[in-house]
């Protein structure tokens, strides 16, 4: 496993950024201007959040005329879940071996 799920959860740790992501993911609003209308932050702030979400791979922008429309991408979240499942299974195996080692001989 060489994926790095860190930026994904970091990107979603901020309340406003998570609100931006959820709105983009649900398909209602897709440009910085549209999103700013609905959120208590400026268009510039929304644009920054979108840029950070894009660098974490959670959204993707597409230039349409004078504006950039964003849509959500599911792969990074799936990757993060895969990472947790894989790492969890490894520890289950290791700790089962440790527990067996620790059992006093019958």
């Amino acid at each position, binding site marked *: 496993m060489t994926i790095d799920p860190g930026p994904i959860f970091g990107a979603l740790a901020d309340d406003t950024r998570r609100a931006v992501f959820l709105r983009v993911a649900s398909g209602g609003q897709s440009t910085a201007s549209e999103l700013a209308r609905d959120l208590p932050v400026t268009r510039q702030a929304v644009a920054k959040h979108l840029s950070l979400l894009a660098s974490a791979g959670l959204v993707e922008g597409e230039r349409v005329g004078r504006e950039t429309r964003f849509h959500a991408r599911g792969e990074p979240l799936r990757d993060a879940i895969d990472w947790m499942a894989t790492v969890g299974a490894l520890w289950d195996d290791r700790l089962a071996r*440790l527990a067996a080692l620790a059992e006093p001989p019958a």
Partner: protein
Amino acid sequence: MASVTREIVLPAERDEAWRWLTDPGELSRWLAPEVELEPWEGGTVETAGEPDPRTGIVERVDENELLRIRWWPVEDEDAATTVEFELGDDPAGTRVRVTESDGVPATASPRALALA
């Protein structure tokens, strides 16, 4: 930050549980087929004998209390993660809680967390 936590209770005293977590010979019986670990802060850790050999450093050692290492797949330091073992008391022996995460460990200072 993604993290995974597991907890078990070992029927053993703290110092015995600590030895299982820090003695390379004991670690080689459960963590990975071959384990090298220098149980002091700044020491190295290496695992081998399985599909994902890892290398890393020991970040924190509080004897009988806490061991933290940072490790990564050999030749891929970008995929480094932190593993923290915390020992605690339990009526049945010693509780071991292991947390593997890709970010700042839970026991880091509030300042470090604020910067993360």
